[in-house]
């Protein structure tokens, strides 16, 4: 069972973000073990590219998944994609709402992409 830390901050403060809460339910259903701090995690799920960069520097091996919120995607996608390119194999970018040809984050989790 892989340990996952989820932190979405773009809409509300930590712990009250509805997207974060929903993703935690999905993660649990997909047999991930949710942890309280990023330090314990093998997988870190965030919606913030700058935070993803901080996690990359603080953790030597954790995999970071950046979820693109449709409301903030326009502003954050270029940074997220840049991190995915610079840290190939450690950073993955997945949309919360899929456009044509994309697979959204929930489907990726349910299909076991990050198991």
């Amino acid at each position: 069972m892989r340990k996952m830390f989820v932190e979405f901050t773009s809409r509300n403060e930590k712990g009250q973000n509805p997207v974060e809460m929903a993703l935690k339910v999905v993660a649990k259903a997909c047999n991930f073990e949710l942890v309280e701090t990023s330090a314990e995690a093998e997988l870190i799920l965030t919606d913030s590219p700058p935070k993803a960069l901080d996690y990359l520097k603080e953790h030597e091996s954790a995999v970071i998944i950046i979820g693109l919120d449709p409301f903030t995607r326009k502003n954050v996608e270029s940074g997220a994609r840049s991190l995915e390119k610079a840290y190939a194999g450690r950073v993955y970018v997945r949309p919360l709402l899929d456009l044509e040809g994309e697979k959204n984050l929930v489907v990726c989790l349910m299909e076991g992409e990050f198991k």
Partner: protein
Amino acid sequence: MKILLVDDLKKNREAGMADLTAIGHEVVAFSGYAKAAVAITESRFDAALLDLLMPAEAMMLGSKGLEHLGQEFPAGLGLSMFAADRGVPLVAVATDMNHHDHPASAMLDWFHNRKMRINDSLVLWMHSPMKAEGIKDWGKVLKQLESG
């Protein structure tokens, strides 16, 4: 001495913290240049030991600029100039990047580990001495910076 240590790699920061505190120095470590620049502005340091290549941070960047987020660039050079400008007496930039693998590392060959005087600061740009485990030896970097 109060030393500022900046390196994006955790293993280099931890080794530097351990080695430098073991010989009696106070070390303040950062993983990126933006917070380090703030620290230079707000605190007084006796020495700054800086990584050469660091991932670009979101500081000041708009959506076009964010296309560079996380891409390594020679941030240590700019940060070293800033430290010298702000009066840090001893400043070193040290890289473990092979000079055949990155142009910024190749450029350090020009300096042959010679110290430069910038304002009133001694500044050294160098290829880092390494420990056996592939970790930077920040203690040796400091020693070289302090040596006559």
